[in-house]
């Protein structure tokens, strides 16, 4: 048994190293804008929820909204954006995510901890002294992706375990980390996440450790002030960065932002809040509707998740008269029904919170960026009004984060964070055309609608020909590489490359069907060959799919075509 498993484990290690390729980034030099003055003309201005100016003008100067209204004089130095019949909104605010936060490289630590009960704090996920501002990078793709949806501001949190560090509110733009920061130490970020193989390795360990650190911090803080008032004859207090990090929380100067996706997470966080008394913000709540009374009682602020479970696909019902149903079908039907009801509850959560009078913003922490507009529309279809949705994207989070004087509405004097769409944002066909972050313009080309006819079922056949760069998410972290595919008169051949081995490996059984691409390749290690299977879906010049490594599981793989030289 153990022999069987040990060898593949070694293979796997080598494999993950092998697929880690260093991709050289193209050095891109951005040219400075000609002016920092803009006039957005002839535009529907949604200044805030239920505040609309039809066909007005917005003037931006030096990163600030200078004027909003009808019939405004256009400054001579302004670049004019003819936003005819478009819509302008205040840039959206994401209450909790990791946009622009560089993910630390996971260093594979395969050694067994010597004394798992007494790990170094960092190993245990206890790093509250960390500050997310030290790991910001405006060039992260996540910034660009969120901004393209109209988000201009986000509260971002560091990576880590139960106490990753302090959060910051950032602008989703800029060219250097400092450009981004609107407010540092905006909250004390916490999770119920346990450590790997060391204490605390379970949620009960995390809860206990949280209580202990909090109380030790209160104790240390009290003693420090005692010492400060009269030092004579007293033992010097120990300097403890971890406990110090709690002080602003104990003083209620900074709230605790707690990740609380599931109902039981919400309950556990509120349990800690009740015992310890801190101000709490629940982050990325997905399943909170049965906890509303408790949330209210705890005076908790809430960011609801913009992630939703996939909607049930409408299946074409056969017009044929119902044939005698097998018991299995009836069972499946009732299960589908319960599943659909469950999905409906998630979708209706925002509306339920609204009706219960709980104020909330939204968070994108775990949402797939591309699903966010559709998810907002699903929430609206489930009972949230467009104004309520807009409030949760703009004015409410601005208030909750204490930045309402700077962002959240289209008003004179506010930071020029704007999003301009060709139709009402919540319209299914709406497209984001321009986004301003701190008065800096980002333009979005509108691609021609794809003319693919879904009815014919003949989606345009994908063209796998060419050189593709890819990324896979493996347990060892993300890794990248290059795939080359050539059409040899009807059949395909190709290679996958590796800088580690300096070798190109032949791809086998390449199959292209519609927009799906599958192939496999052998990975040679330790005197045996493992077959690795890849299955991808091509969408234009991007692909997405999975890489399966035998019984070790499947890992997501995505990539894009490199332009022809």
């Amino acid at each position, binding site marked *: 048994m153990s022999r069987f498993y040990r060898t593949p484990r070694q293979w796997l290690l080598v494999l993950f190293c092998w697929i880690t390729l260093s991709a050289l980034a193209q050095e891109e030099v951005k040219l400075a804008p000609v002016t920092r003055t803009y006039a957005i003309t002839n535009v529907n201005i949604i200044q805030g929820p239920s505040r609309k100016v039809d066909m007005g003008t917005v003037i931006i100067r030096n990163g600030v909204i200078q004027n909003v209204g009808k019939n405004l004089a256009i400054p001579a130095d302004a670049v004019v954006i003819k936003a005819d019949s478009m819509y302008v909104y205040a840039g959206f605010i994401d209450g909790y995510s990791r946009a622009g936060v560089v993910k630390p490289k996971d260093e594979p630590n395969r050694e067994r901890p010597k004394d798992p009960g007494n790990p170094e704090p960092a190993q245990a996920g206890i790093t509250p002294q960390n500050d997310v501002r030290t790991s910001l990078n405006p060039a992260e793709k996540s910034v660009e992706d969120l901004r393209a949806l109209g988000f201009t501001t986000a509260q971002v949190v560091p990576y880590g375990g139960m106490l990753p560090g302090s959060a910051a509110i950032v602008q989703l733009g800029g060219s250097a980390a400092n450009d981004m920061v609107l407010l540092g130490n905006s909250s004390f970020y916490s999770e119920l996440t346990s450590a790997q193989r060391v204490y605390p390795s379970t949620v009960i360990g995390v809860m206990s450790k949280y209580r202990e650190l909090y109380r030790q911090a209160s104790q240390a803080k009290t003693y420090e002030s005692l010492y400060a008032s009269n030092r004579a004859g007293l033992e010097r207090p120990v300097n403890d960065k971890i406990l110090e990090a709690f002080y602003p929380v104990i003083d209620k100067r900074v709230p605790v932002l707690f990740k609380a996706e599931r109902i039981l997470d919400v309950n556990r966080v509120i349990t800690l809040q009740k015992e310890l008394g801190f101000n709490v913000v629940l982050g990325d709540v997905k399943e909170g509707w049965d906890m509303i009374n408790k949330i209210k009682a705890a005076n908790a602020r809430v960011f609801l998740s913009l992630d939703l479970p996939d909607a049930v696909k409408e299946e074409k019902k056969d017009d044929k008269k119902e044939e005698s149903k097998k018991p*299995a079908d009836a069972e499946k039907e009732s*299960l589908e029904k319960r599943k659909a009801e469950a999905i409906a509850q998630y979708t209706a959560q925002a509306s339920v919170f609204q009706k219960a009078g709980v104020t909330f913003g939204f968070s994108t922490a775990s949402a797939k960026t591309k699903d966010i507009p559709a998810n907002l529309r699903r929430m609206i279809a489930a009972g949230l009004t467009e104004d309520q949705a807009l409030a949760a994207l703009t004015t409410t989070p601005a208030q909750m984060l204490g930045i309402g004087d700077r962002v959240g509405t289209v008003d004179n004097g506010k930071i020029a964070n704007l999003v301009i769409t060709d139709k009402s944002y919540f319209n299914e066909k709406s497209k984001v055309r321009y986004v301003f972050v701190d008065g800096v313009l980002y333009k979005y080309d509108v691609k021609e609608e794809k003319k693919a006819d879904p009815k014919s079922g003949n989606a345009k056949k994908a063209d796998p020909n060419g050189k593709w760069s890819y990324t896979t998410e493996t347990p060892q972290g993300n890794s990248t590489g290059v795939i080359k595919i050539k059409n040899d008169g009807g059949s395909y051949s190709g290679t996958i490359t590796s800088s580690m081995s300096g070798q190109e490996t032949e791809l086998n059984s390449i199959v292209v069907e519609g927009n799906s691409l599958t192939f496999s390749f052998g990975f040679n290690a330790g005197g045996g060959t493992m077959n690795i299977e890849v299955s991808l879906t091509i969408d234009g010049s991007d692909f997405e799919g*999975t890489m*399966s490594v035998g*019984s070790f*599981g*499947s890992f997501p793989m995505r990539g894009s075509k490199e332009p022809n030289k």
Partner: protein
Amino acid sequence: MKTIYIKVLALVLVGAGLTFTSQAQSPKGKSGTFALTGATIETITKGVIQNGTVVISDGKITAVGTNVTIPQGATVIDCKGKFIYPGMIDGGSILGLSEVGSDPRTNDYNEVGDVVPQMKALTAVNPNAVAIPITRVSGVTTSLVVPQGGLFSGTASLINLHGYTPDQMYAGFDAVVMNFPATGRRGFFDRRSDEDIKKANEKSLAKINEVWEKAVQYHKLDSANKGKVEYYPQLQAILPVVRGEQTLLINVNASKDIQAAIKWVQEKKVKKVIFSGVSEGWRVADEIAKAKIPVIAGPVQSLPTREYDRYDRPYANPGLMRKAGVTVAIQAGDRNMNYRNLPYHAGFAAAYGMGREEALKAVTIVPAQIFGVADKLGSIETGKSATLFVCDGDPFETKTQVQHVFIEGWQIPMVSRQTELYDEFLERSPGVKK
């Protein structure tokens, strides 16, 4: 404190009625001629006989009925107010193949390799396993010992729970064991994706098909060359199954897998087949019945296989299958060496829809028939093996005491290590003070 002991003593003597006769340290089985008189005899196959007698001689039941002449010199056991049943047959155990669950050195049921049908359970049965007396004194006299793991785990054998060598225990039935590739998850630790599970399943199925095809080829070559073929132990072990001479015991549980297994059996034209486990049999009971494949269902006392299933499905499973026309035997399928609980598994099935009569058959005559040993075991009939037990009530009732057990005519000593510990420690001496 002392008063408690006196009370306890009194309780034991008066209430429990246990006899502390001076027995030999290690009592042995006895053979000879016995007459069990005045009992209610549930023959299983021939109705219930009130105030009847069973005569045992030379390992066989030589007479059953109300007008029976007791042979001269027979040891007469008065069974007035008592009940006689055929020994219960458990259709799936690792008795004698395992001593201590967590200690691999005491476990002999899982050989290296996923295709090892040539591994014989009977070889590794330890006739002196501690669990054997513990099982038989509860009336479970016969057990199918089954190798575990892989795709073809080995060859199972039916044994009677008395004897000093495997051959003395052998009860005349063998089956090649196959674990039908499962589409379900193996447990909470199984975090494979649905896709991976599907692939693993397809791979296993391909392997099973490959083995079977090779076995068919081997059979053809063997027939053509009159037995002169190359040594190929795996295929040699499967040969009798291919030829329809031996049974293939297929462990299969999920409904989808059961359907796939039925299809496989039909495609391959496997003649003798038993399904074992069959925890989701109720979902596809009609299909099993139509395929005329007998099942050994169990454990009955188990959890539903799916979160959304009705809580009592495992209890009702044997009854639901029986109602659909499936031939159903019941096994305890226990991993804690508690095969003695077979009557309770049957009792639960009885309570949850199967009915007492069918459940009783499911642990006696039905497994005997499925295993092709109904001429010897499974009912109280003249000429059959004297493998039976005497008890003071319904054998499924929890409180019923089994008082005598005969296996192939041998009167079994009614002791096990567990009863010995009871005898020693009920009133420990010395007590707190030495």
